[in-house]
């Protein structure tokens, strides 16, 4: 099985400046690049990996990225350890913000999580922390 991150890594191996992608509010494929002149190469790689049909009719637009996807993925491999902090609801490579992201059930745990991120050798400025509340199964009583 290939998750989204596996596919984005394949794009990044072809175009190392690639930092991630998402569909923007205008329906275009927004692509983060460290080198914004690499737009055509990135679009070619995305079409090859995802299929040309995944590129919306609105086309693509390039955004200035700060981190390459390969760098984010390397940090993300370490980031799983933050689940050792009770109340972490998610970890993510946030493709829409070219950052990593951590979710907390209660924002009061922010200091503990930031400490853990530091211990893992991940720069704090590369991580966005947000409060999500608990994520629960949604079965119901009959």
């Amino acid at each position, binding site marked *: 099985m290939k998750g989204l991150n596996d596919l984005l890594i394949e794009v990044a191996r072809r175009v190392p400046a690639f930092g991630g992608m*998402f569909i923007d509010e205008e329906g275009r494929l927004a692509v983060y690049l460290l080198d914004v002149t690499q737009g055509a190469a990135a679009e070619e790689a995305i079409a090859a990996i995802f299929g040309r049909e995944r590129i919306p009719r609105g086309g693509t637009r390039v955004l200035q990225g700060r981190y390459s996807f390969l760098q984010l993925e390397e940090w993300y491999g370490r980031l799983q350890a933050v689940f050792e902090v009770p109340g972490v609801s998610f970890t993510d490579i946030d493709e829409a913000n070219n950052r990593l*992201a951590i979710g907390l*059930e209660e924002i009061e745990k922010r200091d503990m999580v930031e400490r853990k991120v530091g211990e893992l050798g991940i720069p704090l400025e590369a991580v966005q922390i947000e409060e999500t509340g608990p994520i629960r199964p*949604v079965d119901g009583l*009959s």
Partner: protein
Amino acid sequence: MKRSLGITLAVALIAVLVIVGGNLTFTTTSVDAAGPPMASGPGELERLHQRMLPLFEIPGVVYTDALEEQGRLEVGVENKGLSQQVTKELDRLGIPPAKVDIVETKPIVPVVAADTLQSRIRPLQGGIQIAFSRYVCTLGFNAVRLSVGGFVINSHCTNKYFALDGTQHYQPLRATGNLIGTEIADPSGTKNGCPRGKVCRYSDSAFDQRASGVDATLGSIERPDSVNTGSLTIAGSFTIVGEATSNALVGETVNKVGRTTGWSQGNVTKSCVDTGVSGTNKILLCQDWVNASVGGGDSGSPVFEINSSNDVTLYGILWGGSTDNKTFVYSPISAVQAELGPLTTH
């Protein structure tokens, strides 16, 4: 106009059993001008009214009524061309036609309560209520796995989360005759590649073998009559025509159909997110989050993208949500198939 309680409807004679819970509505248009009131009292009026019952043998007679305040009788007909036939029959019944107003009215049709996502539904389709133990969930989608016909549900909608225990599922509720399937696949979680002290899987999914004698429509998901309204009324079906090969992208629009909040549509806000299940040691790896409504009982809802009209691409199975019920989380279909094995879904 005050009508007597004794109004008699043709449909009442033939359809009373199927209009329970429904509404009856009609409008009337006068055909004949009202004549003089009857000289006799209300008792006599009602006695004549009761004698009008054979009028319903004339096709197109809708109702008869005794109008107490006017001291007159009334017959409703679907079209005024029936007036002559009605008048002849009134004569035969010994009821003076001059005392009866014949009015045109629209036909009254029974309004049968429509099926909802919580109704008993056969053949089985995705998006309908299922039950086990003391809980209700949603049937994800029908599928064939290793030549066995069945359906996909959430692992947490079985008696043991991430474990095969042969849970029996019912539709819509636990009752004799409602058994629809038995769990035959529900992989255990792994600690490999999982944060310390946690158990991980890539999907909250399990597979039920369909009970014998229960029909299902492969590729069909119930379609409620409106989106993002909470309506549970079924108005048709979506048809699965393909499956997503990976997670959705952030910003893509997806849909779900669930027994509690119906058809919801929203944008993917996070993709391929390792998600901790609150209150457990379980982590679901590489899940997608969507900003759309969800509620208790929606677990198992099929998640899909609409291609055109009713044709959809299956994206996964919903399992969780935020406590404000504004975000749902689903397991991608690619992860479901990686864990349950190849599935034929359409």
